[in-house]
């Protein structure tokens, strides 16, 4: 028995050592950093000194309109992105799951393929497709009489949502399709015997059985959305782009740290972001668990 305990410890140690070094310690360090601020001494000639500020950085971040606006952008992003992603992936998975679909393996692979493209490259491709001088899409739209500026204040959000959708639709489609395939066939046969058509089966049987997968995908999508960084960073480099260097909270933290060297503020912003993610995950798990108990 002792040998087993020792083996368990040995096999777990590498992971937990690294887990501590790469996850736990940085979180602790971020909390520590967020409590201090740099003060210029004298006229700014004597360098700066670090002083304890308590929750001052949090107050500064929350008091900054640019930071709050970032959360507004995230909210708008989620409101637009989440329904499109869930409905799109679920709808396509249901179509793929019908007996009518052909070439299922081809469709699965083709729809998943964008997910193999690194996020930064996906963003680059789409920014090129948004840029009037380079893009066949914009030219085709103009030829059809549709003028749309993908970098304008109204266009920026849909532009980012489109990139994210392109990257993640296939991934979530595969998750839903796998969950659909795992449904007990006798349940579906029973529905058919009871006279339910394809639509009825989809809405009354399949989708309710997918609730767990839907909640999980929703949760991970929201956590992922909070980290929105790469796509807007690329978009912000476009000429005349409405995407600023503080467009999302993550961009705000990055620019606080590396443009302004205000590490305390950046740490506070990062922690506020992580707390939001924690709160949302807690709420979502509570919500889905509560509903499960009710139906059980």
């Amino acid at each position, binding site marked *: 028995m002792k040998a*087993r305990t020792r083996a368990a410890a040995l096999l777990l140690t590498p*992971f937990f050592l690294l887990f501590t070094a790469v*996850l736990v310690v940085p979180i602790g360090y971020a909390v520590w950093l967020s409590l201090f601020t740099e003060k210029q001494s004298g006229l700014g000639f004597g360098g700066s000194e670090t002083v304890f500020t308590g929750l001052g950085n949090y107050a500064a971040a929350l008091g900054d309109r640019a930071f709050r606006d970032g959360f507004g952008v995230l909210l708008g992003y989620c409101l637009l992105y989440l329904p499109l992603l869930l409905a799109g992936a679920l709808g396509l998975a249901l179509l793929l799951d019908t007996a009518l*679909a052909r070439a299922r393996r081809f469709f699965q692979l083709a729809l998943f393929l964008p997910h193999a493209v690194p996020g930064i490259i996906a963003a680059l*491709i789409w920014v090129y497709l948004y840029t009037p001088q*380079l893009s*066949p899409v914009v*030219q085709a739209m103009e030829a059809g009489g549709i003028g749309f500026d993908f970098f304008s204040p109204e266009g920026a959000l849909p532009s980012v949502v489109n990139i994210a959708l392109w990257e993640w639709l296939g991934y979530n489609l595969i*998750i839903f399709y796998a969950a659909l395939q795992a449904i007990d066939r006798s349940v579906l046969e029973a529905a058919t015997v009871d006279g339910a058509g394809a639509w009825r089966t989809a809405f009354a049987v399949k989708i309710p059985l997918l609730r767990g997968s839907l909640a999980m995908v929703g949760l991970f999508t929201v956590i992922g959305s909070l980290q929105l960084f790469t796509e807007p960073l690329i978009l912000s480099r476009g000429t005349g782009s409405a995407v600023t260097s503080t467009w999302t909270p993550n961009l705000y933290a990055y620019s606080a740290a590396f443009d302004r060297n205000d590490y305390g503020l950046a740490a506070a912003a*990062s922690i506020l972001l992580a707390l939001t993610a924690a709160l949302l995950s807690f709420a979502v798990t509570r919500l889905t668990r509560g509903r499960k108990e009710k139906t059980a």
Partner: protein
Amino acid sequence: MSAPRSRWLSKTAVNGVLLLATCYMLFPLVWLVTAATKDAGGLLAGNAFSFEGFDLGGNLARLAEYHDGVYFRWYLNSLLYAGVGAAACALISVAAGYAFHVYDFRGKEKLFGLVLLGVLVPTTALALPMYLLASEIGIVNTYAAVLLPVLVNPFGVYLSRVLCAAYVPDEALEAARIDGAGELRVFWSIGLRTVMPGFVTVFLFQFTAVWNNFFLPLVMLSDQKLFPLSLGLYAWNSNAHAEPDYYPLVVTGSLLAVVPLVVAFVSLQRHWKAGLTAGSVK
């Protein structure tokens, strides 16, 4: 309307929608391929889907020459970060997942709960404190700064535990013990062998994640020689607005950077599907 006719109609509708979605997914990739064959003039002239101004060879040659072939150095760096990082990460994850599956010890489920909590931490919130810690111990701007953090993947541990439960036969472990094998030996020759599909799955996912990694290298690295592809292409793209000559470099470089992942996903379909399924269907 007769029955066969309505069935034909629904079939067309279903497959039509799937085909439309496929076009949306594939057309940017097709654009990438055709655009990579153009010189700067051809790119800016528009009509990207034609082969006007075909100069793929020239683009590749310029890519290889530019700044003493720094692009292919980035390529090797990416292979190093993703290959070494993912292999080590998969081994560490599978070891932990195996231990969680096979052994009983006090506080096991609490410890596993901690791992699950780790899945939910937004990684970008950690990048800045990680950078400051790394600069305190003096490893900023080294290979280690990018490699160390990617060895940890809580989701990989979760996946490994699930896959161990599916693949590792308890009887085989017991038999090996009766034959006198030590616990580590049992893990190495039986556990790891039988859960090899799980190892490949975790490897594939981590390889992709590291290959796609952008934020961490952006924060950690300033020496161009250490850049992975993602960061290098980003740097080039930032120059492209001022100098359009960079456009073909970025586009052709992006195409080459996508190839290994597409090949991996096409050839290892079984594994990523297994990974996605294990992660989603309880």
